[in-house]
């Protein structure tokens, strides 16, 4: 028990089951390292689901990537046919055979040629296999499809006993084997091979829903190892199989507090003046023609302008169409494409199933390793899957992108229904930031209003901004909040004009009053001046009288003194005369 608890990845693997990596993209993640080393694995599925291809890829990748020679024992196809069939995937079997990294042995069984005359065993097969393994030192063995033995030989009891012995023998040989089996009606394989191969069973499926096919892989069992239990979609393309380990079970991805500009200055201001968090997911939703693609293109433009890489998945328009249309708002995306910073991938949603889209997106992202991913629009994916399927797909995509610390922007079309706050895909709860663009219809015109519905971990504006698409790009304008409510568009303009007129009139009135005051002051000042001069003249008059009095008084005094002297007279006169005489 305690041993089990200690089972954490990264611990010394000596106690764990050893794995043989398949090299198949994604499969090693699901199986936590690969197939069980030195044990047989059963791959089963219906016809045409990719069993042979997966097993061929296992030996080829083993030879090319891990330097492990392999033996491919074909019960169905001849060696030449097999080589031809997988050549389209870029596997050169003949070369590997010449390099002694691969041995293909075609087992031919023709019932009409065989007469069973008593007891026998399958030693011939053992010897052939043993010889093939030993001659190149093979580590990997594929038996495709061993059930064909049952069509050539009739004694089932012998066959079953021999198969049991074969798998045991393979284990003793220490080779990692893949046995393929056709899917039976009630069991995993027609002959119940799963009874014998009990270490690891992988089931492949090819399902068609609404004319759209999806390949799926499921690990039915894997003894002694953790493994993903879901059905995983896989893709067969020119590079072989890629499986998508789509659901990360934990929510433990790294987060970044770094931000990335939205490309619209006004929008950045609404988001704490910074923009979106790096590695976050952003949903832009709105009704038709509200400029969702323009926002997405601005974001792409800003990303590429800062020397970061962006990948743009278009589900509605062709890349050329987007390039042309964005020219009209002053975004020149073609230079970014030329510089290799921007990549467009356009496909119709109906091209393949949802899971395939996911795998394809996954693969392209892995290859291009962008900083920003744009999906425009996700709404159309609804045509190839149900709402819950689309949601599940997007959850997985977001999970994956968050793990890779890639910022993703989705655009989604909302329909004008009663629940138009909700996006159709119902992913608004998953995303980190949600921008909603809404048509505001008023006074016979439509204007766009942009809301930041949410932006996790960030102080964001709760205001509605008017969203204007101009030839120079996108702009956000504060809407007019007045007594009449929120005004946008020409109503806002008109109101602003009206306000300006009011201000002008008011200014005029004020200046008239000022002049009036000035004039009044002038009049008063004039009056004051005249009063002043009046006062001065009065004062002068008064002063004049006073001086005269004063003068009169002194003259009188003088006269009186003279009179007095004259009365006393002589002396005075004598003295004066004497004085005069003396002089």
């Amino acid at each position, binding site marked *: 028990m305690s041993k089990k608890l200690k089972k954490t990845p990264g611990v010394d693997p000596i106690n764990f089951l050893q794995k043989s990596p398949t090299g198949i993209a994604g499969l090693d993640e699901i199986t936590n390292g690969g197939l069980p080393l030195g044990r047989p694995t059963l791959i089963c599925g219906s016809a045409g689901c990719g069993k042979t291809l997966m097993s061929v890829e296992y030996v080829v990748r083993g030879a090319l990537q891990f330097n492990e020679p392999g033996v491919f024992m074909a019960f169905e196809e001849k060696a030449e046919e097999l080589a031809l069939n997988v050549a389209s995937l870029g596997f050169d079997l003949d070369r590997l055979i010449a390099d002694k990294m691969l041995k293909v042995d075609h087992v031919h069984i023709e019932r009409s040629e065989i007469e069973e005359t*008593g007891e026998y065993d399958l030693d*011939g097969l053992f010897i052939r296999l043993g*010889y093939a393994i030993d001659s190149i030192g093979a580590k990997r063995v594929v038996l495709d499809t061993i059930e064909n033995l049952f069509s050539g030989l009739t004694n089932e009891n012998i066959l079953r006993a021999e198969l049991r012995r074969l798998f045991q023998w393979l284990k003793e040989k220490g080779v990692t084997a893949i046995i393929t089996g056709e899917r039976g009606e009630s069991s995993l394989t027609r002959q119940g091979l799963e009874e014998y191969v009990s270490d690891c069973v992988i089931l492949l499926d090819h399902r068609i829903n609404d004319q759209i096919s999806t390949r799926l892989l499921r690990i039915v069992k894997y003894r002694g190892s953790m493994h993903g239990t879901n059905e995983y979609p896989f893709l067969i393309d020119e590079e072989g199989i890629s499986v998508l380990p789509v659901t990360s079970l934990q929510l433990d991805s790294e987060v970044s507090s770094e931000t990335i500009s939205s490309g619209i200055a006004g929008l950045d201001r609404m988001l704490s003046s910074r923009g979106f968090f790096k590695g976050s997911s952003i949903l832009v939703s709105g009704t038709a023609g509200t400029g969702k693609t323009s926002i997405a293109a601005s974001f792409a433009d800003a990303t590429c302008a800062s020397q970061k890489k962006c990948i743009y998945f278009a589900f509605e328009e062709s890349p050329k169409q987007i390039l042309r249309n964005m020219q009209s708002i002053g975004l020149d995306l073609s230079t970014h494409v030329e510089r290799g910073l921007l990549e467009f991938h356009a496909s119709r949603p109906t091209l393949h199933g949802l899971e395939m889209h996911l795998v394809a997106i996954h693969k392209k992202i892995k290859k291009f390793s962008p900083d920003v991913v744009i999906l425009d629009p996700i709404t159309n994916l609804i045509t190839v899957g149900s709402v819950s399927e689309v949601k599940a797909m997007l959850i997985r995509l977001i999970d994956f992108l968050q793990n890779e610390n890639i910022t993703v922007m989705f655009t989604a079309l909302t329909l004008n229904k009663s629940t138009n706050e909700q996006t159709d895909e119902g992913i608004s709860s998953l995303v980190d930031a949600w921008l909603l663009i809404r048509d505001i219809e008023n006074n016979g015109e439509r204007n766009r209003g942009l809301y930041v519905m949410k932006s996790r971990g960030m102080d964001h504006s709760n205001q509605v901004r008017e969203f204007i698409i101009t030839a120079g790009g996108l702009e956000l304008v504060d809407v007019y909040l007045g007594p009449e409510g929120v005004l946008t568009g020409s109503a806002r303009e008109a109101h602003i004009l009206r306000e300006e007129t009011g201000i002008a009139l008011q200014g005029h009135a004020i200046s008239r009053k000022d002049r009036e005051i000035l004039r009044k002051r002038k009049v008063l000042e004039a009056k004051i001046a005249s009063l002043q001069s009046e006062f001065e003249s009065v004062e002068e008059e008064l002063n004049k009288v006073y001086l005269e009095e004063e003068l009169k008084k002194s003259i009188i005094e003088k006269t009186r003194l003279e009179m007095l002297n004259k009365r006393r007279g002589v002396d005075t006169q004598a003295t004066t005369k004497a004085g005069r005489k003396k002089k």
Partner: protein
Amino acid sequence: MEAAKEYLLKLFVTGASPHSVRAINNIKDICEKYLKDNYTLEVIDVYQLPEVAQQEQIIALPTLIKKSPAPERRLVGDMSDTAKVLRGLGIAITV
């Protein structure tokens, strides 16, 4: 004597396993009884010559391949079912 042999038979066995020993004995009896002096029987131990197993498309052992006369036929098993062996060899049973 050598040139006139009509039947060319190759019996593939695995060493001295019980099946092999039985098969060798049975086929020798049948040949002696029905094809006296008209056959060549080659017994090959696949353990000694493993590459032959691939060349001759051998899976089950023991296997008897009737190389001639045409058509080529394969008989697997320990040759204990004489009627089937004879049918495989294309010999009409004369009681």
